[in-house]
């Protein structure tokens, strides 16, 4: 099985789906001739032509608006938002149009659209190239929100997203694009949207994370394993709809839960996980549910020391695990 990095897996998924289904096309800023600023679409323009890999104007509203319209006409658009930080001009299209279409047309019309959006900080991108806006979308019934954390999942989940009849926001951990490597089968497979994945089994503390933070959580679990702390790591993968059962099962086993995300704490996705645990596994808790999240400041700072202060890393996760294990 070939090993590849996460962005290569994303590219392969799109390539395979475009080859499999003529209705699939890509639209976004610099996705065509340039191959995307993160090189996610390299080679696809040459392979599928300018009608299926479309360079858009710098107008996210129109990228998503075009996607919705095309989807209603039966196409399978894959919209790329260059940085998830730029998604807000399209917010109305996503939340008020794409998410509600199926419901308001009583199931007659659906929007089978994927919006790919590289997210996350730690890459020296400052305020406008580092954001993690997933919580704005996990509050929106009618959307699916997916965040892969491995090349295998990235390919399988993206293929599932393209085939899904609903609008899917596909957040890709850009810091992990080249950092995270893994084996990816060459054949056609999907990873279903919905189920979380227990990526490490343990008995002392459950760590819930997704995307880059899941990658770090595994490293942190490795660190503390040497100290005798047996950590269970759950990769949530799909944030909406959330896999409550896997979350609760894990907490029932360990009694202690740590939720990690790099988006800021208040109103973040971790609150949903914590509430799920409090409602569904209260009598299994042996410690307060702990959230380790980005601080409540307006952006990821550009200054490197401040960026390091903001960002969650494996050491910070390990420290939080130790604290919880000791409790």
């Amino acid at each position, binding site marked *: 099985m070939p090993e590849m990095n996460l962005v290569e897996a994303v590219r392969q998924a799109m390539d395979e789906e475009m080859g499999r289904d003529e209705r699939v096309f890509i639209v976004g800023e610099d996705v065509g001739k340039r191959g995307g600023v993160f090189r996610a679409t390299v080679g696809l323009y040459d392979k599928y032509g300018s009608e299926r890999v479309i360079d858009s104007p710098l107008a996210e509203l129109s990228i998503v608006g075009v996607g919705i319209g095309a989807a209603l006409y039966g196409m399978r658009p894959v919209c790329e938002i260059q940085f998830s930080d730029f998604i807000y001009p399209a917010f109305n299209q996503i939340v008020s149009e794409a998410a509600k279409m199926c419901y308001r047309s009583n199931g007659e019309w659906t929007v089978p659209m994927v919006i790919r959006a590289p997210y996350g900080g730690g890459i020296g991108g400052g305020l406008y190239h580092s954001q993690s806006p997933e919580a704005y979308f996990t509050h929106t019934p009618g959307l699916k929100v997916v965040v892969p954390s491995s090349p295998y999942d990235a390919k399988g989940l993206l293929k599932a997203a393209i085939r899904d009849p609903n609008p899917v926001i596909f957040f890709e951990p850009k810091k992990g694009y080249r950092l995270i490597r893994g084996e990816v089968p060459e054949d056609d497979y999907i990873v279903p949207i919905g189920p979380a994945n227990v990526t490490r089994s343990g008995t002392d503390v459950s760590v819930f994370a997704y995307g880059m933070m899941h990658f770090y959580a595994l490293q942190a679990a490795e660190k503390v394993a040497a100290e005798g702390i047996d950590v269970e790591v759950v990769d949530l993968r799909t944030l909406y709809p959330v896999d409550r059962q896997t979350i609760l099962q894990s907490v029932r086993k360990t009694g202690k839960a740590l939720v990690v995300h790099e988006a800021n704490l208040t109103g973040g996705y971790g609150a949903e996980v914590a509430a799920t645990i409090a409602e569904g596994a*209260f009598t299994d808790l*042996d410690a307060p549910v702990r959230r380790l999240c980005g601080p409540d400041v307006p952006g990821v700072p550009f200054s490197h020391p401040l960026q390091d202060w903001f960002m969650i890393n494996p050491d910070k996760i390990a420290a939080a695990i130790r604290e919880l294990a*000791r*409790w």
Partner: protein
Amino acid sequence: MPTQVIMPQLGESVVEGTVTKWLKQEGERIEEFEALLEVNTDKVDSEIPSPASGVVLKILVPEGQTVRAGTVIAWIGQPGEHVGDETPAGHGATAQPVAPAAANPSVASAQAGRDRDLGFISPVVARLAREQNVDLSQVKGTGEGGRITKKDVLAYLAQREQATPAAEPAAWETPGEGDLFRPTELMFANAAPPAPASASPVPTPSPVVAPQPATPAAPVSRPMAAGDRLLPLTTMRRAIAERMVLSKRTAAHVTTVMEADMSRVSAHRAAHKAEFAQAGVNLTFTAYFVAATVAALKAVPLVNSSWSDEGLVLHGGIHIGLAASLGDEGLIVPVIRNADGLSLLGLARTINDLAERARSRRLQPDEVQGGTFTITNHGVGGSLFASPVINYPQCGILGVGTIKKRAVVVEGDAIAVRPMVYLTLTFDHRILDGASGDAFLGKVVQVLEGWA
């Protein structure tokens, strides 16, 4: 409900007693406080009064037999009432009165859990304890601060499955641990509204109670009338109780009272309040009392000391604790460290800060430790003077009453209206005698009255 008669602990180091004579026999009527039996301990014979009115239902310890303090030796109740059958041998002492109706094992264990401060019981620990009928007071906690974790309960269950656990020694069999007078669960036995005290057919072994060396050595009877409520003891309440009783039992408290004319302090405060406020500091009278105390401690260093069996420990630093009320919850004593190094402004600022953080529960543990002398400003509640309990092992505590305008006779035999305050020094007579105590308090007065 029948009442137990317990072998009392007739002295601090006395852990057993011999029944020399029963003054009432089974079936005889007795009134509360009427002499019920005679007990001999070491050298002394004592008459033991009945804890309740009623009929002697059952005598469990015959004359001549010696039993440990805390042992149930008889039952008092109404004629025909059923009582437990246990003998005083072994751990029968801790058997609880039987309430034949409302038998519920889980409640029994839950009640036993209140015998000591178990720390926070997490939801999963509570559930496991209920489901598996675990007496949490028998589970050793390994979590932070000794908290009982889920793992601790699981380990206990695994161990319990392997072997019937040996009976724990009764509290009074482990010196220095536990309430030496009567097992705590007996105090709580007929508490808690859904009152099934025990359902175990067999007398249960006593749970080990937490060290409470200073709990009052008198029987705490708790008649619960309809409408009464039992407030569980908080950690703070318990800590205060232990500290207060330890102090009262150990230090030889003597209180001396003086009064001070606060005219000059009031004038100084009025003149400087605005200036201090500009520096962000609220200038309170407390700052002056601390400053005066510092001066007096320097003048009479013996007051800044602690008792130890090896000798008097004269403290090099002057660290002044200030009692701060937390309402019904209790009180806390943050410490101004090296108070002698602070100006009036510095003192006022530190007091503001400590008081504010005491109220908002944000004091650090080391900020409430290491005091060498304590001031309690009980006057804030209107109290004129009081005899506070020494913050043991410190030597003394200054009580500050309310500042009140009074007609006083001043020089020239004139009567004047002056803001007066009563100051008390309560000191440990083992360390100080009256002369030194008065010298200290006199210095405090002198500094306040001569404030410039």
